[in-house]
């Protein structure tokens, strides 16, 4: 029972971590508070749905299509819409406000397009919906895929950001964009790249999540907010933070559902989130700079 | 000679690092004392504990005989302590005058309105910034912001003024003006604790110096003597100044 709960909790947490990682990069490095993040996830989910349903392309292969598309999308959006805002903003706060407002608009545009193309119906399909035995607990293969992907992406990005010069440069842009050019970093390129990576991660998340979760054209906000909670709880810009916060939330939810009351899962999630923030105001892995 | 500030056995630890270690010294009313020490020796940390920004890990800080360690800055300020910061902290979205009025409005005088504006202008005059009263603080140069910060501190009409490297970055002429200004404050009877690396200023201003190294006090006494102390020379001044 305990192991089952533990494992299903981790698997659920994998989903949360997966959908949060792109956001933590976008917000942490490119400094864009992207409210249209969830819409990117949903768009990728629709893409996977179409690829699978119309052309029979396996969602795992679909990843190979969605991830580059996500990257290109992010690259273009940053160049067209966000770059001018970054250029004109005098302070971090004004950029934050501008990006909230602008991506709020973007959210509606993407959502509107999806509504026109796909309507407002619940969409879902079945893929890899088979049980896999993990230490005696049976979990769905598609969810396991999400967990695996979260760990691989999380670990990979972590190593990339901390162990490579290029990753360190991205972090430098995150902590002191004004100083980065002093060491030869092209801040615009780095931020644009980080934003695009964020979008491609969102796309990866969307594809995988669509294999087991029902979605609608208007459900993006739910993902954005969940991702934000995970990002903040983990500490902005911190990949390991997002990974662990996601897993913790998954565990909390599952344990509360199993041992307390399924009706309190979300309350418990938010309670834990709030408690973590009260204990560590800059998130689990965040270093407060105030 | 009354004692205005007394630190006894003050220690501050940041995680594993002990920034200030069992430090004790006291200031007599009206004294101008230099707090010296190599970079990272804990001077700013001491200032931060006196002003209430940090709570000491251990020890007692007494202001006019009353213990104040661990109180929040807004509780200590009205008791007559004002300061400047090593890295200026202007209020960028306020005007220069408003920056100074802030100290008037919430300090012990609690001035407001026309009266506050006039007082603010007066203090800006003291530091030579009166013409810029209406400008946004963020439009000032770094040095002017430092001036404004001093005006803000003066507006609180403190008994004890803490200056953290306020003279840094001034050229020789400006330095002279700055020193004159501080001397005029001394004449008014203000007690001043000043952290400074500019030895000319220390020599000109301070009758007495406290020297720290690695969080501990290594010397305390009349400036001339202290600056000749071999340990101070070794740890702080270097041979050039010896």
């Amino acid at each position, binding site marked *: 029972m305990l192991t089952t709960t533990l494992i299903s909790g981790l698997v659920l947490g994998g989903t949360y971590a997966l959908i949060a990682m792109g956001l933590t990069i976008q917000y942490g490095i490119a400094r864009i508070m992207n409210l249209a993040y969830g819409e990117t996830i949903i768009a990728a989910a629709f893409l996977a749905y179409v690829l699978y349903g119309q052309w029979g392309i396996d969602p795992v292969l679909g990843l190979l299509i969605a991830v580059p598309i996500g990257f290109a999308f992010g690259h273009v959006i940053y160049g067209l819409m966000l770059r001018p805002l970054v250029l004109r903003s005098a302070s971090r706060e004004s950029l934050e406000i501008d990006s909230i407002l602008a991506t709020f608009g973007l959210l509606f545009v993407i959502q509107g397009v999806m509504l026109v193309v796909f309507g407002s119906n619940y969409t879902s399909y079945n893929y890899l919906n088979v049980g896999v035995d993990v230490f005696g607990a049976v979990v769905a293969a598609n969810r396991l895929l999400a967990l695996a992907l979260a760990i691989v992406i999380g670990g990979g990005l972590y190593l990339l950001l901390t162990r490579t010069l290029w990753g360190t440069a991205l972090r430098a842009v995150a*902590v002191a964009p004004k100083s980065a050019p002093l060491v030869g970093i092209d801040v615009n390129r780095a931020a644009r790249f980080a934003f695009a990576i964020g979008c491609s991660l969102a796309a990866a998340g969307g594809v995988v999540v669509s294999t087991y979760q029902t979605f609608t054209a208007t459900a993006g906000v739910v993902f954005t907010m969940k991702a934000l909670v995970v990002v903040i709880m983990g500490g902005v810009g911190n990949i390991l933070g997002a990974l662990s916060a996601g897993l913790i939330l998954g565990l909390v939810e599952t344990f509360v559902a199993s041992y307390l009351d399924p009706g309190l899962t979300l309350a418990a999630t938010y309670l834990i989130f709030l408690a973590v923030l009260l204990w560590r105001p800059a998130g689990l892995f965040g270093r407060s700079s105030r | 000679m009354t004692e205005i500030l007394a630190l006894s056995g003050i220690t501050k630890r940041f995680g594993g690092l002990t920034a200030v270690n069992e430090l004790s010294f006291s200031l007599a009313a009206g004294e101008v004392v230099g707090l010296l020490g190599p970079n990272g020796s804990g001077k700013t940390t001491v200032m931060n504990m006196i002003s209430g920004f940090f709570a000491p890990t251990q020890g007692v800080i007494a202001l006019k005989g009353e213990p104040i360690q661990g109180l929040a800055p807004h509780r200590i300020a009205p008791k007559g302590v004002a300061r400047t910061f090593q890295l200026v902290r202007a209020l960028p979205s306020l005007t220069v005058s408003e920056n100074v009025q802030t100290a008037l409005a919430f300090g012990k005088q609690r001035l407001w309105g026309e009266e506050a504006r006039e007082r603010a202008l007066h203090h800006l005059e003291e530091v030579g910034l009166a013409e810029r009263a209406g400008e946004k603080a963020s439009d000032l140069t770094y040095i002017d912001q430092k001036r404004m910060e001093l005006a803000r501190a003066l507006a609180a009409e403190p008994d004890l003024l803490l200056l953290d490297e306020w003279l840094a970055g001034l*050229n020789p002429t400006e330095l002279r003006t700055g020193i004159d200004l501080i001397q005029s404050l001394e004449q008014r009877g203000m007690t001043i604790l000043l952290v400074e690396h500019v030895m000319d200023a220390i020599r000109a201003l301070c009758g007495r110096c406290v020297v720290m190294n690695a969080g501990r006090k290594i010397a305390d006494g009349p400036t001339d003597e202290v600056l000749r102390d071999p340990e101070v020379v070794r740890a702080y001044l270097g041979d050039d100044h010896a």
Partner: protein
Amino acid sequence: MIMLEIGDLSLHYGQHLALDRISISVGKGETVVILGANGAGKSSLLKAIAGMTPADSGASIVFGGRRIHALPAHEVLEAGIALVPEGRGVFGDLTVEENLALGAYAKRARAHANENRAFVYELFPKLLERRRQYVNTMSGGEQQMVAIGRALMSKPELLMLDEPSLGLAPVVVGDLFRSLGRIRERGLALLIVEQNVKMSLSIADRGYLAEAGRITGEDTAANLMNDLAVQRAFLGSAA
């Protein structure tokens, strides 16, 4: 041989003219100081050269035979000019090690990262001791070392320093200028803005006097050092 040649450099902040048709030059391996009152525009000049603040059009900045005016900052660095700015500009949330590693981010420097790092650690042994520390928990002097070390890591041919001795203990200032002397010996050109007139002139070859956005004088360091009248006239007038 002239390495950096600036002509007619003007710079406006909105309406305010901060630099007025500045022309200066720095020779290969030469150490040049700029002296001037607060607000004279010294920092603005360094920032304009570094590409951190866009100068007005019409200026000419030639470095090593190449026109670098209007290049973005990261490309100026790539061309071989490094700046240690006012306020240091270190990456506070990164460690000393990471700051130095990033110093060698420029393509021109990557291959030489190890040898440059060795030099920096030799120059500032304290940094080696503290290499895992987050820079924003270090004292002002320590941070200044990080900033200079980081700039050296980019293997510059010209190193520009904006008030490097600001806020440093006398013993460190002494060390700093000795270090700058050693850097100079390696053949780097230095362009230094300083209030510490004596110290900076002692290591310099030449000096400029700046006043209210203009260059008002130029002489060898030895002459400036001796001519106290000039010194007082130029350094005192603006205050």
